[in-house]
C-alpha cells in the first residue's frame, strides 16, 4: 500500500493537524468518522502528547479497529508526523484503489469497477459468431465454440415466460431456506418450553393459579439469498437459465440480492427489481457490458467480499455462486475470498453447471481450492435442477 503524506506545515494548531492526520489515514484506507477525531484530541489530553511514543500508542488505540489496521498504523503515523519536516503540497490527490473499497456506497463501488473494466480480456476462442442461438443449456462444450458477443443483448437470451417460471422456483427455494439455528426463543402458541414470564402475568388474573401455560419456541427466520452469477464466455449457454432465475428471485423475495460478474462485479439487484420484466432486462444489458468475455472469479469474489458483503452479507445470508469455475486469473485468490466471505457467518453454495456432466471432477484449480469453503457444491444447468435443490437447501 502506498503511503501518502499530507502533512501541511501551514496547519495551525493541534485540531487542524489532527484533522489532517485523519484525512491522511482515510486516504490510506482506514474508515474513520468525525467522532474519532474528537476522541483522539480528547485522548491526547490524558497522555503526554508531546512525547511521540505516548502519542503514537494513544492514537493507535483510537484510530485502529482491526488487526490489519493496527499493523498498518505505525507506518502511517511515521509518514505523517515523523517525516523530518518534508512538506508536501497541501492536497495530494491519491490514486489509491483501496480508497473506494471502503466507501459504503454502491455507486462508488460500481465506479471503481468501471475503471478496471477489462472487457477485452478474452479467454475464450472467438471463431463462430453465433453462440447465442444454441443456448439450450445442456451438454455443450461451451468454452470452445461460443463467441464473446460484446454488448450482447440479454433480451434475446431471456424471455419473460422464463422469468415467470423462474419466479415460482425462486419462491420455493426461498421458502426452503429457513434459519433454524436460533437458540433464542419467542412467545408462540405452540412450543417446547413454557414462557414463565407470561405465565406469571396471566396467573395474576386467576389469583396466582397458573392455568394458562403460554409457550416459547425457536422462531424460524428467513435466510436471505445473495446470488452471484458468472456471465463470462464459458457460461453463456447457461446464462439464460441463471439470469431468468435471478430475475425471478428478485421478484419473489424482496430481501434477496443479485450480482453478476465477468471481469468485474456488477450489482444488478435494482435493475432486476424493475416492475417491467422486459425493461429490467434492458437495464441489465447495459450493466452487463463485456458480457461473455473472460472471467476473473477470484477478483470478482474478492471485490464482493470487500465491498458489498460488508453491507449485505451476515449470518442469515446464503451466498449462491453460479459459475463453472473457469478462471482467467490465478485461482489462488478464490479460496481467500471465500474464506473472508465465510467469516461473515454466511453459507456458501456453489452451483456449477459442469457438475451435471458424467465424470465431472472439480479438477480446475479454481474449483479445487474453493471446495473446502463450500456448504453445498451442486449441479445446476436447468430450471428443474434449481428446483431440485429444494431438499438440499432445507438441510442447510
Amino acid at each position, binding site marked *: 500500500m502506498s503511503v501518502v503524506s499530507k502533512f501541511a506545515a501551514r496547519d495551525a494548531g493541534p485540531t487542524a493537524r489532527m484533522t489532517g492526520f485523519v484525512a491522511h489515514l482515510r486516504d490510506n484506507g482506514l474508515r474513520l468518522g468525525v467522532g474519532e477525531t474528537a476522541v483522539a484530541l480528547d485522548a491526547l489530553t490524558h497522555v503526554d502528547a508531546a512525547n511521540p511514543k505516548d502519542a503514537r*500508542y494513544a492514537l493507535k488505540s483510537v484510530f485502529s479497529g482491526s*488487526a490489519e489496521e493496527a499493523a498498518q498504523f505505525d507506518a502511517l503515523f511515521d509518514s505523517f508526523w515523523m517525516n523530518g519536516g518534508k512538506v508536501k503540497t497541501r492536497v495530494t490527490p491519491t490514486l489509491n484503489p483501496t480508497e473506494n473499497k471502503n466507501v459504503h456506497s454502491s455507486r462508488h463501488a460500481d465506479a471503481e469497477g468501471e475503471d478496471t473494466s477489462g472487457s477485452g480480456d478474452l479467454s475464450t476462442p472467438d471463431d463462430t459468431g453465433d453462440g447465442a442461438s444454441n443456448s439450450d443449456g445442456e451438454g455443450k462444450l461451451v468454452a470452445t465454440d461460443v463467441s464473446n458477443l460484446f454488448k450482447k443483448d440479454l433480451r434475446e437470451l431471456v424471455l419473460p415466460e422464463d422469468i415467470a417460471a423462474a419466479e415460482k422456483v425462486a419462491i420455493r427455494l426461498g421458502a426452503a431456506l429457513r434459519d433454524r439455528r436460533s437458540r433464542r426463543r419467542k412467545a408462540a402458541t405452540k412450543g417446547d418450553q413454557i414462557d414463565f414470564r407470561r405465565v406469571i402475568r396471566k396467573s395474576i388474573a386467576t389469583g396466582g393459579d397458573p392455568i394458562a401455560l403460554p409457550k416459547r419456541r425457536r422462531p424460524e427466520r428467513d435466510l436471505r439469498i445473495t446470488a452471484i452469477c458468472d456471465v463470462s464466455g464459458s457460461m453463456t449457454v447457461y446464462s439464460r437459465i441463471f439470469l431468468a432465475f435471478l430475475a425471478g428471485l428478485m421478484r419473489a423475495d424482496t430481501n434477496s440480492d443479485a450480482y453478476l460478474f465477468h471481469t468485474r462485479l456488477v450489482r444488478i439487484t435494482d435493475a432486476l427489481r424493475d416492475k417491467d420484466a422486459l425493461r429490467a432486462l434492458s437495464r441489465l444489458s447495459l450493466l452487463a457490458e463485456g458480457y461473455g468475455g473472460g472471467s476473473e472469479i477470484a477478483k470478482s469474489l474478492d471485490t464482493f467480499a470487500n465491498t458489498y458483503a460488508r453491507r449485505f452479507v451476515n449470518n442469515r445470508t446464503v451466498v449462491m455462486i453460479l459459475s463453472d469455475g473457469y478462471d482467467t486469473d490465478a485461482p489462488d485468490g478464490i479460496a481467500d475470498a471465500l474464506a473472508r466471505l465465510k467469516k461473515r457467518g454466511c453459507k456458501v453454495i456453489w452451483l456449477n453447471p459442469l457438475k451435471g456432466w458424467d465424470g465431472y471432477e472439480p479438477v480446475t484449480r479454481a474449483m479445487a481450492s474453493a471446495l473446502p469453503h463450500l456448504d453445498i457444491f451442486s449441479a445446476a444447468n436447468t430450471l428443474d435442477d434449481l428446483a431440485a435443490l429444494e431438499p438440499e437447501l432445507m438441510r442447510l
Partner: protein
Amino acid sequence: MTWTTLQTAMAERGYIASGDLSMALHLSLSLGRPLLLEGAAGVGKTEVARVLASVQDTDLIRLQCYEGLDAAQAIYEWNYQRQLLAIRAASEDGETGKSVETRIFSDDFLLERPLLKAIRQPKAPVLLIDEIDRADEEFEAYLLEVLSDFQITIPELGTITATTRPHVILTANGTRDLSDALRRRCLYAHVPYPDLETELSILVSRCPDINDRLCAQVVGFVQALRKEPLEKTPGIAEMLDFAAALMGLGIADLTDDPAILQATLTTLLKTQSDQANITTEVAQRIAGKAA
C-alpha cells in the same frame, strides 16, 4: 495514573502488557470508553480484565458470550418460581390486586445478570464481555445500546440508570467479523503472541523458581513451535503449563530426555494431528535450536 504506572502496576500483578495495550487500557479508563481486545486464543485477553480489576481494586463482572445469548441471560430475569409462590401465598393471606403486583415486580424478585449487575455497583467494576464474536448480531446491537447509554429499561420497574460507569473490556478472537458500529464505539488493541523477551518475563513472573537455563529453553521452544504449521498454536497458558510440567518432573535441561520432552508436549499440542506432526525428531530439532 499515567499509562506507564498502569503498566508497572500490572507487571506487579504478573501481567506483562505491551506499550500499545497499556496505553489502550489507560485511555479506556480515562476516556470511559469500552476497549476491544482482539487476538488469538490463549494470548491473555481475558487475563487483562482480571488484572485490571485487581489494579483498580474493584470487582470483575464477566459475561461469557455464546450463540443464542439472550436478554434473560445477559441483563435480567424475573425469579418466576418465587413470584408464583408469592402470588399463592398472597391469595391465601387475602392480599390482592395492586399490592401483590407491585411486590412481585420489585427488586426482591429480580435476578440480576451481568450487564444489569455491572451498572448497579457502588464502585465502578470491570465488565468483561468475553468472546463477543460468539454472540449473535442482535445481541451485539443491544450491547451497543447499553454501552452508549449505560441504562437498562425493565418494563415493570422503569429505567435503571448506571450508578457508576463500568470499565468495559470486550474480547474477540475472530469467529466472525464484528460490526463496524461496535468497532467504532470502542478503543482497540490487538494482542499478539508475546515476543521472546516479553514471554521470558511472563514466565519468570509466574514461575519465580524456574532456573534461567530451562526458562530460556522453554520460551525459545514455544516460540519456535509457534512458527510450525499447527492447527492450534500454543498460547501463554500452554507455555506456563509446559514449564510447570517440566519443573514438576524435575527436568533441568530440555534436551536431556527426548521421551520426557515428547510426553510433556501434551501440554502444548491440543489436537491429534498436531501431536502426530510434531514427532520426536521435529521436537528434538526445535529443542536443539532453542537450547
